[in-house]
């Protein structure tokens, strides 16, 4: 697996030419989360799922992607979101967490947003007690016109998925 080759960051380097940060926005339950595009390897239609008995609840099972066996994590369960009526699997994003590719099941992939640094409010500057995997929040115009701004919760995939058991 060619994991770890790419640098994953949500914080632009000071003085870096690149001013926008591309983020994959996904919806899970009623919330929208942003994964840095640099960590997302692929977006898939859910392949056939094989459950793994005796594994923790947030693991949906394993899937086969190009000959690799990949663990599929359910984002709503992992984030302990309240899901009123659970839809069948929407999309799977393959996320690189360094030494492993992990499939993350989400309801829907909303869009890829180019975030300007000033759109992002970093967790370190917020008083709210946020989980360690939340880097910050960003306000983005909604994909569908006329529904106002949307809150995008920016995720650090390494902190959320790395070392997950």
């Amino acid at each position: 697996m060619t994991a770890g080759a790419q640098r994953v960051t949500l914080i632009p380097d000071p003085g870096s030419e690149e001013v926008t940060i591309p983020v994959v926005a996904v919806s899970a339950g009623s919330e929208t989360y942003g994964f840095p595009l640099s960590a997302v390897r692929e977006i898939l239609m859910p392949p056939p799922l094989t459950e793994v008995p005796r594994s923790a609840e947030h693991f949906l099972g394993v899937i086969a992607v190009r000959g690799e066996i990949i663990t599929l994590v359910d984002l709503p369960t992992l984030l302990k979101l309240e899901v009123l009526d659970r839809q069948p699997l929407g999309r799977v994003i393959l996320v690189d967490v360094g030494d492993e590719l992990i499939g993350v099941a989400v309801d829907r992939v909303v869009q890829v947003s180019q975030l300007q640094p000033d759109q992002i409010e970093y967790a370190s500057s917020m008083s709210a007690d946020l989980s360690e995997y939340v880097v910050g929040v960003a306000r983005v115009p909604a994909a569908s016109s006329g529904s106002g701004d949307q809150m995008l919760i920016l995720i650090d995939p390494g902190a959320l998925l790395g070392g997950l058991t």
Partner: protein
Amino acid sequence: MSDPRDNVQQEFLAEAQELVEALSRDLLLLDEAHQRAERPDASLINEIFRSVHTLKGIAGMFGYKHVGTIAHALEDLLDDLRVGRTDIGDPLLDVLFDSVERFQRLLALDDPQAPEEAHGVDAYVAAVRSIGTQPAVEDGDPLDQYAIGSAVLSVLTEYEEHRLRACIREGMQLYRLRATFDLTAIDDSIEALRDVVHDDAEIITYLPSLEGGNDESIELVVLLASRVPETELKAHFEGRYGTVEAIKEQKHPPTVPPNLTSIPPSSRSLLPQPEDETGQASLRSVANSVRVDIRKLDDLMNVVGELSLVRSAVGRAVAGLDGDPKYRQPLRELDRLGRGFERQLSELRTRILDVRMVPLGQVFSKFARIVRQAARENDKQVRLVITGANTEMDKLIVEELADPLMHLVRNAIDHGIESVETRMRLAKPAEGTLALNAYHKGRNVVIEVEDDGGGMNAHKLRERAVSRGLLTAEDSQDLTRQGMLDLVFLPGLSTNTEVTDLSGRGVGMDVVKTNILRMGGVVSIASEQGIGTKITVTLPITLAIIRALIITVGARLFALPISAVREAIPFAPQDVRTIQGRKVITMRGETLPICDLAPLFGLRGARQQASRFVIVCEMGNRELGFVVDELVGQEDVITKSLGATLSSVRGFAGATDLGDQKLALVLDAPALFSEYFDGGEALPSVEAHA
């Protein structure tokens, strides 16, 4: 892995490892020749020299200081050996054998410069040097004392140079004989000269002189060594053959250090000479092979898997067209092409698997050293006989096999083969024999570790098992002799019983058995008291593909490696009894504990209990029946491990793709056994599920 420096490092380690393995194999041959009191083959010593020389070179490049230091010292020693400055003997072989282990350990270090290793390295180098400086060499190079001339020395072959030195050491005088020979009969004349000279002197070499000779004749300068006084030699030769001139000893030996004589570098070159045939051969073999990271082969295998998915997708698309008469012809053609494609695909798969194969000799050659050392420590005489070193197996298995086999080998020497005195008393040959045999048997490779030692006392094993509470005295009465022998694989029986330097490292036969089982193999034992013991290990040729029984539990597919399965029988729920809270059935008069996989995995099993099956598995002398819903069939499967995230979930060795992205979890039979019988550890993942 993406760091190019890491790659280079890996390359170096792989190459160094190969050199050390080659060194180990060659040393074994050298040792054999020595034990047979034969003169070692000069090309073999050259080969060893070259391995060490190359190792020194690359170690220097990659900052493996200690490896380089040792290689350097050995290189000097081997050079001495090569040109006869020192002779082969046990101390020399000991340091050489020792080097293999040192190299391997030093190559495994994280820090190739580790300062704490320096002391050991220095001590070793001192030991090497003490062998290198035999008295003969302390005198300095005897050639220095003679004005032979660099032109002559530079064309001497190593053997000639060696003989020259040997003659000087034996106190022979050197002479230069000039003789003119008829060109047409030169070979005969030289032969004749050889015969004449034979008693009085030894011809070291002969060279055409630059002066004498004409169209029909040539003047040769013959370098002679002789014990006969000069006057006598002159009387004998002069006139008849030519002139004789003594080469005088120089009064003042040259001031250059002994190792840097006037000999030009070309004759002592460390690199193989271009005209050297063996050198060419080895270069060629290097050019024809490439080293490949085994992970790249896995990637290739994945591509093959992907291709077969494409193939089946095409098949489905084609099937959609079926029934339409106008497509009948092209469909038939497509079908034919599809089958051809499938054949090529399976050929490709076989070829890739073939690339993973390495000869078992790679691991066997390590044992020569261990046997040598263990025999010496134990004061026993052991002859190692290896057959089937060319038998090929998957690289990963060969690696995994090293430790269990090493344990068996040590056991055989430690507990099996008797001391020389005991053997003499029993009228056995003083030298014990330890045989390592490998051969193919169907889809498996069989490896036997056999000794002609004392064998095992089956009844003693039984007593020990009972006294340790591993077996009730009552049960033990029913055991057959084989059953008693098999007790040796029980955990707690062989562990720590007889702690010795060799095998008593707290690792028992049960661990050996578990490790072999984990690789999908089987271990069995045969032993006759007074005659010997044979441990037979049967392993699949490759780990990549194992034969598995595909079953369902709760409508989910699972694969159970067939190596663990003894038989499958229909489940008869009415026959289930409970003993001490454990469910058992009776099979052919024997009680068999059973474990229903459905509740174990938190799944709902088939409602029709009577349609279910019991898969009887055997492992480490214990039997357990797994109750499953359906038997689907047997299949060759490629097991892939679950990611790090799921590695803590017990009971599964991995997953396998059954085609069309349909996965089956591969059951880890050893883990399920130990969970059932030994209770295992707490299973946090089960709680999380509830």
